[in-house]
């Protein structure tokens, strides 16, 4: 048998972001997968060093274009307790609304890209049409479609009024039936079920060993959601307790259905928060705050999983910032789950983890001055799962 090497990326039709996959194939079956990162590394952490806390807040939001609010909340989770500021409940609720809408937008975006990968262009268009409605809400609430930046340390830039909340509820009512229909399509479409089921298996043991996070881990039966396990901000309120969606399949199909279902849980949270918010209350003015202490850390549940920020502070400026985004935890499993799969299933498996390459570029393996690929052999040390 001849083993051939099949390179994919960094710029490739099936990838919307640059990542390099080097697949060793035998016929059309993958015997070994390696991958390489670093094509969108920008040095966010280094750039933020020396920034004042307010400026750094904007810097961390620009880590990711999809979950910018979750990055901002993780940073605030770390910094706000250090400054000792009292944050009113309204501000927390506003943050929750933005973050949950972001989850909806992220999962819709993912659904569209997934449909695009398997050639269902019409479904892609449907998904992205619904997503535009969610972006409209952001536009109305915060003035921006993508990087919303509605936060300030201890407060928010503006308070949501009655018309805003009305608009949120109306838009949600508008998109909900459509999204239900799209979920139906995903669930019953023959092409989707045959290409997703039993492909890209991640057993529960492997998910636990690798510390996978977010929907990827929950699809393998791991009951872990930061919103539930370590409630932060408004997620601690009794009515806004999160019920994470857990499935046991562990394949591309399970991960797909989890994301479809999470949208509805997020909608419930947004509706509830809109009900609880007092539209006449004004958010407090911004104060000059001094952070005490040396370092702190914050976590949030981003659409793709746990998001971790470590912040060290000196003289009210950032001394060291460390971000760990969910995709880095998840992407490691690529090297293993692609082994034994057909090469035509690669786009589906890549997308089923919902990778956000741009925000995870922190690490490179460099040996003897040369960048090395990540291989399953190194990452798993010969462990076996079945």
């Amino acid at each position: 048998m001849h083993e051939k090497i099949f390179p994919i990326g960094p710029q490739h039709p099936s990838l919307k972001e640059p990542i390099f996959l080097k697949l060793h194939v035998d016929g059309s079956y993958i015997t070994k997968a390696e991958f390489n990162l670093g094509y969108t590394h920008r040095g966010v952490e280094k750039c933020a060093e020396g920034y004042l806390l307010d400026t750094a807040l904007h810097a961390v939001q620009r880590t990711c274009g999809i979950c910018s609010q979750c990055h901002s909340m993780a940073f605030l989770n770390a910094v706000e307790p250090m400054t000792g500021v009292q944050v009113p409940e309204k501000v927390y609720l506003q943050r929750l609304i933005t973050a949950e809408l972001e989850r909806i937008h992220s999962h819709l975006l993912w659904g569209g890209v997934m449909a695009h990968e398997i050639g269902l262009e019409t479904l892609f268009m449907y998904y992205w049409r619904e997503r535009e409605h969610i972006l409209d809400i952001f536009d109305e609430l915060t003035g921006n479609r993508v990087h919303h930046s509605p936060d300030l340390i201890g407060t928010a830039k503006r308070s949501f009024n009655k018309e805003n909340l009305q608009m949120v509820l109306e838009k949600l009512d508008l998109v909900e039936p459509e999204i239900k229909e799209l979920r139906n399509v995903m669930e019953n479409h023959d092409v989707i079920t045959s290409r997703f089921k039993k492909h890209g298996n991640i057993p529960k043991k492997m998910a636990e060993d690798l510390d996978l996070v977010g929907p990827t881990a929950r699809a393998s039966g791991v009951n872990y959601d930061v919103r539930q396990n370590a409630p932060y901000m408004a997620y601690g309120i009794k009515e806004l307790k999160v019920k994470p969606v857990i499935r046991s399949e562990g394949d591309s199909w399970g991960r797909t259905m989890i994301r479809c279902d999470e949208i509805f849980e997020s909608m419930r949270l947004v509706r509830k928060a809109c009900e609880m918010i007092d539209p006449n209350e004004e958010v407090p003015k911004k104060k000059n705050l001094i952070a005490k202490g040396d370092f702190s850390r914050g976590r949030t549940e981003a659409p793709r999983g746990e998001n971790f920020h470590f912040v060290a502070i000196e003289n009210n400026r950032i001394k060291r910032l460390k971000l760990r985004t969910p995709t880095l935890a998840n992407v490691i499993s690529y090297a293993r789950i692609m082994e034994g799969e057909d090469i035509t299933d690669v786009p589906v498996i890549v997308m089923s983890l919902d990778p956000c390459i741009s925000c995870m570029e922190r690490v490179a393996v460099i040996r003897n001055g040369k960048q090395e690929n990540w291989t399953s052999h190194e990452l798993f040390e010969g462990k076996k799962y079945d």
Partner: protein
Amino acid sequence: MSIKKSPWISFFNAGGCNGCTLECFACFNPRYDVTRFGMELKASAKHADILLVTGIVNNHNKKRLLNIYEQLPEPKRVVAIGACAITGGLYKGSYSQAGPVDKVIPVDVYVAGCPPRPESIIDGIRKCLNDKRSR
């Protein structure tokens, strides 16, 4: 030579956050629908007339960007999208920056914003059509 109509678009993320990427893709959704100008999203640069570049162009990516630029058939146009692509934006002076884009490849149209709205991206692409300059 200038591009007259129906430009095909290719797209490269040379080291940005995802914001600009998404807004470029959003141009192809039913709301903005640039297909009405005869534009089509092409995965490979070899099929495209206009290349949209986002991001700061980091050291790792510089060679790839040059490669992709060379693969574009003539007449070709490049649109730099977002603050990162134009100056480096938030990451200006970062150790991993080899850009901005116009330091690496010639740029025809700059679209500013972080990220720019789809309307301005469409406007930027339209500006590439029937331009008088020759290269």
